[in-house]
């Protein structure tokens, strides 16, 4: 199990993540939503650190905070009228959506809790056996057993690139 400090840190991070996530979907100013999304993604990086997944934490900051979130803010700024205007983020199916989301939460936590009770301790236990840093381990796996998905990712990125150019480019070459 986690040490006292670590679990305290976890709860703080979890609190920040959830509060900022709620702000993302409830604020009326879409620009503020985007900023809270940055905070939310950043705190998820904190969760990764707590889980000893340093590499993922780094990637989370590098790609999500540094790339995707900035892209979103760009997108908001590009649609000029969006920055100032207030938008309603909810619709009539709010209650139904909440119900579905809540039952989803119940099922997922149910699965986790049920499995925990069988095995005892399954959640946030830092594995003491980790002697090799995660980039090392991931690098080895990516370049040996997972070489096929690794190469496929570059094809995927290429397709995304073509797609971006095709859809965002101005007409006439």
């Amino acid at each position, binding site marked *: 199990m986690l040490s006292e400090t670590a679990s305290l840190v976890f709860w703080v991070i979890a609190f920040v993540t959830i509060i900022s996530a709620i702000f993302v979907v409830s604020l009326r100013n879409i620009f503020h939503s985007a900023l809270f999304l940055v905070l939310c993604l950043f705190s998820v990086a904190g969760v990764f650190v707590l889980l000893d997944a340093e590499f993922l934490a780094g990637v989370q900051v590098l790609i999500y905070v540094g*790339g995707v979130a900035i892209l979103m803010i760009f997108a908001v700024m590009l649609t000029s009228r969006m920055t100032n205007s207030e938008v309603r983020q909810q619709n009539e199916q709010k209650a139904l959506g909440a119900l579905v989301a809540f039952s989803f939460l119940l099922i997922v936590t149910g699965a986790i809790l049920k499995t925990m009770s069988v095995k005892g301790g399954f959640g946030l236990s830092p594995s003491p056996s980790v002697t090799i840093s995660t980039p090392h381990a991931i*690098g080895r796996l990516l*370049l040996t057993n997972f070489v096929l998905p690794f190469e496929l990712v*570059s094809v995927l*990125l290429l397709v995304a690139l073509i797609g971006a150019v095709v859809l965002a*480019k101005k007409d006439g070459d």
Partner: protein
Amino acid sequence: MLDSYGTVGIFLVVSVGFVVVTLGIARLFRPQRPTPQKLSTYECGEPTVGSSWVQFNVRYYIFALLFVIFDVEVAFLIPWAVVFKQLGLFALVEMLIFVGILLFGLLYAWKKGVLKWV
């Protein structure tokens, strides 16, 4: 492992705290007598023209998109670089294929003129 991130945590707390404390103290002590002149945006003493929320050029967006794609590529380069010395030639070839495929993309984008700034 976790302890070394304590420094990061302390740094985070201090940096956030610094802003909150200094602005908070300033708010407590400063006199507050706003007038319309004081509240207007400062633009070199001139009256402001238009909104400061200008619409950006769409070109920025394509650049940002391309940036994210190559950002992801870099994320994959890191673990390769870490283990490169142990894995040797085969890993080099794998990475060359990986980067090579994306190079096609760069070539494509370049030829399509999206990298040109007007």
